[in-house]
């Protein structure tokens, strides 16, 4: 598919969504695979609604997401000097530097100060404190699959209709307390906002964005097959559009360089350490993650894409893992190597972000067992779908065998929809793909 064809498909999908919104009594759900232009859609829909004279509330989950959306909305609406975008925030919030110079963006602590704004964006938690007399005609709920339904319950009274946008393949919301008593209830407060809303409104249409602008062709097919088996998507670009090259030649022959070459050449690499049962903060695996990132910086990677040719700077590289203690260990190792600018975080926090190259410490690496937490498809999907060019997986040997020894044995509950894809299945699918990109280290 050429980029022009991809753009055509995406624009057709947008037209369908806008048409569905016109006729929908309650709203529309849009499933967006990784990097499919969710923010672009939000801006487009907001512009359309404002053009029809509607006031729009935008609900996102974190302050960072709100800032990104508010900035994009202000830029998109800047052509009309009459239009104002409001940014509602809690008392302790400070507007970030990048948003200060937008003339059409107004930040405020109470909704009353934003009466003149056609679009107001805020976090769901802040919206939940807003009392408004007349409901808003439309709400746009971003990252709706990560929003817990108890939060939706608190804000749903504010609007008549809503566009729910999100990625169903990423991490589900969770609770830190025992929540079994609500299993099987259509309004289980620990389920996602979309799941609960659809359970009560089966007439609400579910649309899908068809192409991923972020994932390269090498990744889109793998991620689509493993995590979106029933709603496949394609890459907007072809192999010819994307490239990763080095400014320096490898020095000698090391597994690290071989892994980097594999990643640059094929878009994937599995850096496989010897088998072994290790504590969570496996020193060798942590060191390998940091060393790969440091070497990537040192060799001067240059990324070519439809946007042009740019060097891959440290802040365009991310290392993702499942646990916070692993992140702390990786950060310490990065600091030791002088690469503090490389991003290291948990999958929960990398959700929704985009990088040129990602390095994943595999959730099952070095483990004796495969628990539901480590098998969760969303966790793996986040880690495997943040990159524009290449994804390197660091793992100890023996993950397929570990999976075979631990088939998922979670109890089934009445009225609880089966979650697809199954985490075990997704892990197997990804590992079988990665087998072709294996570099043995040590």
């Amino acid at each position, binding site marked *: 598919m050429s980029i022009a064809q991809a753009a055509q498909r995406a624009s057709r999908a947008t037209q369908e969504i806008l048409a569905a919104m016109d006729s929908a009594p309650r709203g529309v759900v849009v499933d967006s695979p990784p990097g499919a232009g969710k923010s672009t859609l939000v801006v487009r829909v907001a512009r359309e609604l404002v053009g029809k004279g509607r006031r729009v509330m935008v609900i996102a989950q974190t302050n960072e997401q709100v800032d990104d959306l508010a900035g994009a909305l202000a830029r998109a609406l800047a052509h009309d000097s009459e239009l104002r975008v409001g940014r509602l925030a809690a008392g302790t919030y400070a507007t970030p530097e990048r948003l200060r110079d937008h003339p059409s963006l107004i930040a405020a602590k109470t909704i009353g100060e934003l009466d003149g704004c056609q679009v107001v964006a805020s976090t769901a938690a802040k919206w939940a404190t807003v009392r408004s007399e007349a409901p808003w005609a439309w709400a746009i709920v971003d990252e709706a699959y990560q929003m817990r339904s108890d939060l939706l*319950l608190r804000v749903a*009274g504010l609007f008549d209709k809503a566009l729910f946008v999100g990625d169903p393949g990423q991490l589900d919301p969770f609770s*830190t307390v*025992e929540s079994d008593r609500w299993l099987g*209830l259509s309004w289980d407060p620990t389920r996602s906002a979309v799941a609960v809303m659809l359970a*009560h409104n089966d007439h609400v249409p579910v649309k899908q964005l068809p192409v991923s602008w972020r994932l390269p062709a090498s990744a889109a097919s793998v991620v689509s097959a493993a995590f979106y088996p029933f709603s496949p998507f394609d890459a907007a670009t072809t192999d010819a559009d994307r490239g990763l090259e080095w400014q320096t030649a490898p020095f000698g022959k090391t597994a690290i360089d071989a892994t980097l070459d594999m990643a640059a050449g094929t878009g994937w690499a599995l850096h496989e350490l010897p088998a072994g049962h290790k504590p969570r903060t496996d020193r060798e695996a942590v060191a390998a993650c940091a060393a790969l990132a440091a070497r990537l910086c040192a060799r001067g990677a240059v990324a070519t894409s439809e946007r042009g040719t740019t060097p891959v700077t440290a802040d365009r590289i991310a290392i993702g893992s499942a646990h916070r203690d692993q992140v*702390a260990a990786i950060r310490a190792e990065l600091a030791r190597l002088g690469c503090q600018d490389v991003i290291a975080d948990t999958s929960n926090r990398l959700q929704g972000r985009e990088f040129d190259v990602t390095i994943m410490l595999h959730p099952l690496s070095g483990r004796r067992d495969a628990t539901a937490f480590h098998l969760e498809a969303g966790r793996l999907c986040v880690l495997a779908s943040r990159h524009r060019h290449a994804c390197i997986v660091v793992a100890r040997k023996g993950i397929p065998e570990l999976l075979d020894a631990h088939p998922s044995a979670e109890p089934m509950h009445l009225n609880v929809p089966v979650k697809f894809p199954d985490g075990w299945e997704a892990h197997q699918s990804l590992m079988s793909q990665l087998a072709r990109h294996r570099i043995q280290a040590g």
Partner: protein
Amino acid sequence: MTVLTSLARIEAVGEGRAQPIRTVRHVHVSDRPLVFIPLGLAGEPCAPLAALVGDDRSAPRLLVVTSPLNRDERFAFAAGLAGIVGGYIGSYLAAADPAGTQPYPDAPQLIVPNAAGVAFTRLLGRSTRFRPASGEATDPASVPVLGRWLTYLAERCHPASSLVLTATGALAAHWATGQSAVEDENLAALLAWIAPPPGMSGADAALLAEDPARWPPAGPATDPGFDREVLLGRLTAIRDARLAADTAAERRAVGALEADLRDVLLPTWTLMWQAIDLLRSVPEAAHVADRWTADRLSFSGYARYLADGGFPQPRKDAAVDAARRLVRLEGEQQRLEAQMAYDDPLVMAEYRMTGEAFEGIVTRCEPTRLDESGKKAKLRPWIWVETTDEVTAGPGTELRSPARPGQKAVVIGVEPASEQQEGRTLVTLELQNGMGRGLIPAPGSVPQADDIACYTTLTLDFQPAPDFPSREDTPWTHGGPPPQYVATEQDATEPWDGADWADDAYPSQVLGTEVAQ
């Protein structure tokens, strides 16, 4: 399981006895708890067989169901239990203030052997709370009231509350044994690890304790060997005597069953009071009284709701009630975790391991430093803390110290303490408040050089409960407002009792109101 608990388990194996993992007790133990050991009939989800219950260790009361599959007898058992539990709870209600506005001075406490005991209590509450007090069923009015109380108590059973304790849960929260968490649910084996007989290792004692002939299971499930060898014969003898209308034989058979069940239950009764004594031997943590006050408030609220003729608890939470309960439980859990860390250095140590807290020595202090950037000079002392803990907090992070919980300390800088020694970090902190009014800090309000100081991101700050819509305003996303609850005769029947399998699993009117918890 945390790293420190894992370490304690390894040490327990090495030492041959359970290791304390807490320095103080984080649960309230009442002066007069009600110990409740239920037994159920195998193969039925909630068919009571017997119970040993009471608040006096020298006078346990035995309740026995002589034909557990007979529903009338089941509710006769409930009536007997209602007499004991009702009398126990009633003794706390009698102490109310006349105006009826203050919380009751004390609250009841139910202690069951294990988590399965709580589940049994919950089911017993479910099967009795909807029983009509009038009409064709002939239960005494105390049965549905018992059901409501048992349901209330079972639903209150979560880590932040002490209204219901499980003996195994409370002990395992304070001692780590050398066996698995599943094995810890066996009260006899757990106590064998904590207090093995003289000259015996915990592992050996636990092995002996797992012998059902020596220590019958603490219920609700009975030992299958007992079921086969003893119980079956006794229940058959009673049935045969009744069929033959032989009252003398029936009396003998019932007497024999009661004696056998008493033998099965009494060892656990002894263990329960041993567990209570062990828990009492640990000094109570500072915030336990706070949480017990919350329990008393909850109990008082529910008692008054019941007295005003409140509905039985619904089988299923309505949307708003479910969300509200989830948020409340999460808030209580978060507060519990912070309070436990503030009260107990062994709990704080776990946060120090994950970088959420650090402890070190105050190397320098500027107690009278002023911030003169604004119009008026403000007292903003700086202290320098040197620690070997890992520090993950960056500049600008607001920290608290268990020594001065109300005082905010903002991280100014984090740097290696010296070039030569790796692993030592120097943290610069600016104190924000809690030093009195003037520009000279009140005595003792600022840590001094050479003090040991601990700082953490955990706070005890009270988070107000968020607003939820009322039930009538349940939005379209959650199915709209639920219908109003109207009590009917059918409430007491379960969906699986009747033949209406094809119908909606739960009649909508069973969705009642969540009440003050």
